[in-house]
């Protein structure tokens, strides 16, 4: 698995962080306050999760007055949903196992 995958998986491994990201994906741009209201954790905790998501390129922030609005960056998930490269990697490793099997069938 490529390095970019590791960062994405690590970032989304936390269920609270994943829930925040999923909400931004499904509902669009929101403020920290709006996210906190339904996150079940404190505002500083939500801010911290948003910081990690931002570092992974999964969210973008936009300042407006005293409010910061966060939105999901779906493009950051491209390495995970690029089917042709995903499947090419899958089949390459299946070919490896098939060759192993064919060698064992000889014996």
């Amino acid at each position: 698995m490529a390095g970019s995958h590791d960062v994405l998986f690590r970032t989304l491994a936390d269920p609270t962080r994943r829930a925040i990201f999923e909400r931004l994906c499904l509902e669009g741009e929101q403020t920290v306050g709006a996210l906190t209201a339904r996150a079940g954790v404190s505002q500083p905790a939500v801010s911290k999760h948003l910081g990690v998501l931002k570092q992974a390129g999964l969210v973008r922030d936009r300042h407006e007055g005293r409010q910061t609005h966060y939105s999901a960056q779906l493009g950051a998930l491209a390495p995970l949903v690029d089917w042709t490269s995903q499947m090419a990697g899958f089949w390459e490793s299946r070919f490896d196992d098939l060759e192993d099997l064919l060698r064992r069938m000889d014996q």
Partner: protein
Amino acid sequence: MSQPSTETRSVVVEREVPFPPEKIWRALTQPHLIEEWLMKNDFKPLVGQAFSLRGDWGSVDCQVLTVEPNRSLAYTWGALGLDSVVTWTLTPTSIGTLLRMEQAGFRQDQEQAYRGASAGWRNFFANLEAVLGRMD
């Protein structure tokens, strides 16, 4: 390996292996052998036959389309809302066989739906959780 086009996209993996087509054919069509390199399955080499491939992350729904012993095998491959066709072609060479796998038919609208629609997102997260579960 990947070939972008306007209508559909496909993945091609090709390898020359030092084994005769007959032997490779067995590995591609006998369930206990398929399981060793691909997934658990209830494959039968009969045109029209439905079968499934089962991994620890979920299953792939398939249907046999073409069976030309020692030459060509094709089946549909449906997983996570994406439908495609997997075609195996075996061509004898001086050292063995040129084995070619083409997975074709990822329509662009399917991929966009997968990226954007809320149903697609639910699939994505379910899949992600399965992957994360395996990493533990």
